[in-house]
């Protein structure tokens, strides 16, 4: 190649071009370029998203400043806007959802990957992956027609009788509210946790299990003390994906959360989430400040997701170190 460049007479250009073309022909360069473009496109979309949210919320940011994050009033008539009740509703419903979905999902994944016969595991996994594809509005309908009446007539009176001394389970039982939203989120995110955790558990090398068994561990001990810790990072990853879905879920939540921007200690009380209020009020929002406040809520949800994801990553790092220290 160098010789061709010299032959052309000191002009390096054609040679370089030819070298580039040669590399092109081998395909590596094209693949590199195209994948690079795809990767940067995703990055650009994210940057653009944040930029647009930032730009289009200027009026609200100027008027309310940091107060937007801790003000409890959301009044479109007198144009007073604060995000706190929505942040509260979003975090609480997601937390309730995760609290129920994580043990259920991880447990199911362990069964499917480690205990169940292959045929049962495959069949169940198919059903679970089907669940992940159900549109959220269907879950919302399910919640309205089945979950909410059940909560109002049976579950909430029962909780009141037994755990009513806790502020979490007090107040009138409407059926709709934070608890209903958390429950429906739990049902919606379980498939993510099960499906991904199962894959991760299956990817744990057989040698790990064999080594544990060879050392005299029982089947369960090998699963719980060796396989699950080995797959810990992946399982946590599935939980964080589920959390992201729960934070941003709009339709099913708004159908059952009660849509009342108040902060209450009871899970029976109605609440409101960020995604729900944007979906509810954006189309009929009149007045620039109102629209800008709604867009700023979008920015807040974005920040909330980033912060929680960051914390999640720190958690992974911390537990990972712990995992390696005590194998």
């Amino acid at each position, binding site marked *: 190649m160098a010789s061709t460049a010299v032959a052309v007479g000191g002009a390096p250009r054609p040679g370089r071009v030819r070298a580039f073309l040669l590399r092109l022909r081998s395909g590596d360069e094209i693949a590199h370029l195209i994948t690079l473009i795809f990767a940067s496109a995703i990055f650009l979309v994210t940057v653009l998203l944040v930029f647009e949210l930032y730009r289009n919320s200027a009026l609200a940011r100027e008027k309310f400043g940091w107060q937007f994050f801790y003000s409890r009033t959301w009044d479109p*008539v007198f144009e007073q806007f604060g995000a706190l009740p929505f942040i509260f509703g979003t975090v609480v419903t997601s937390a309730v959802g995760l609290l129920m979905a994580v043990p259920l999902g991880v447990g199911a994944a362990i069964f499917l990957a480690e205990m169940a016969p292959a045929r049962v595991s495959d069949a169940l996994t198919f059903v679970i992956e089907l669940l992940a594809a159900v549109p959220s509005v269907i879950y919302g309908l399910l919640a*309205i027609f089945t979950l909410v009446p059940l909560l*109002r007539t049976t579950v909430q009176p029962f909780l009141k009788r037994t755990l009513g001394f806790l502020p979490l389970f007090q107040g*009138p039982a409407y059926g709709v509210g934070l608890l209903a939203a958390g429950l429906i989120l739990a049902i919606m995110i379980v498939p993510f946790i099960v499906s991904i955790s199962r894959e991760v558990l299956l990817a744990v090398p057989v040698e790990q299990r064999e080594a544990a068994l060879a050392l005299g561990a029982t089947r369960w001990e090998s699963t719980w003390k060796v396989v699950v810790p080995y797959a810990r990072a992946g399982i946590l990853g599935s939980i964080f994906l589920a959390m992201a879905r729960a934070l941003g879920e709009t339709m099913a939540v708004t159908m059952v959360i009660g*849509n009342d921007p108040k902060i209450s200690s009871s899970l029976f009380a109605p609440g409101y989430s960020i995604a729900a209020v944007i979906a*509810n*009020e954006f*189309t*009929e*929002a009149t007045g620039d400040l109102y629209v800008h406040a709604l867009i700023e809520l979008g920015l807040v949800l974005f920040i909330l997701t980033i912060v929680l994801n960051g914390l999640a990553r720190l958690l992974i790092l911390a537990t990972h170190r712990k995992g390696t220290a005590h194998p």
Partner: protein
Amino acid sequence: MRKFLACVTVLGAVLSLGVGTVASAPPSPDAALINGAGATFPYPIYSKWFDEYHKLHGDLQINYQSIGSGGGIRQLQSGTVDFGASDMPLNDQMLNDFKFKVLHFPTVLGAVVPTYNIPGVSQELKFTPEALAGIYQGKITKWNDGALTSANPGVNLPGEDIVVVHRSDGSGTTFVWTDYLSKVSQDWANKVGKNTSVNWPVGLGGKGNEGVAGLVKQTPNSIGYVELIYAIQNKLPYGSVRNAAGVFVKAELSSVTAAAGSVAKSMPADFRVSITNAPGKAAYPICSFTYLLVPESIPEASKRDAIKEFLHWMLTDGQKDAEPLAYARLPKEVVDKELRAISEIK
């Protein structure tokens, strides 16, 4: 490598296909296109009108996106549509935000009714304005409150807590409801006010008419408000409301038209008027116009004439389509006034 080449080929094929479809999109050289956007409440009647009108005038196609009043106003402001549609008249500040003058044309009337679910009560309830305002402010909390029992003698109202339900999505329905409450209760006007969404003192929010109706149906001892059309079509029970003349009137298409008729004489030239709590014995008090918003000046002559002709048709022949779709038609006095206003479009 071969796989990669195959991918590129497929990608290329898809791209060229895309280009092909764009290029072969049918150009419509003769049919003039008019675009509108806005309120969802009148969408069924608007789509019927635009369809009927297209049958009469094959050379004119009117597209309407029901994206909500707020969206319609914004799109008209930025000039991406030829007309907007809103469930409420624009206020002065909103009109000032426009770079051009906007005319309001009422098209049909809508009404909002209180619907309820009280186990053991099958009679139709009567609501005084004070009772409705009190319930929605959280001041009246029991069904057997004096404000309710005195208006409903003979009805055995239970001593249960009232579960209040309102719309959670921004809507013209909420605007009409809160506009009415602002008129009958000074306290409401000062503390809550009127808008497409407000800061509700109490209650659960349901999304859309169906969300409110669903919550009311499911929750014992609840009250909510829905559009009259929705209540009629779904056979929901709804109460009568005492009007400004002191008569309890049940919402029907005729009592809604009567409300508009009773304010026709005092109607301002730009039609921006609230007709809630209208005078007149037959008038149902919680109703409103829904509007088309048309720029006063439309430079393009063909478009201008088409819009003017459509407005004329809508106010005359078009009105007969309203009642089969459960919209109340405009009273004659308002139609006459609007027909004169069409000439303001230049």
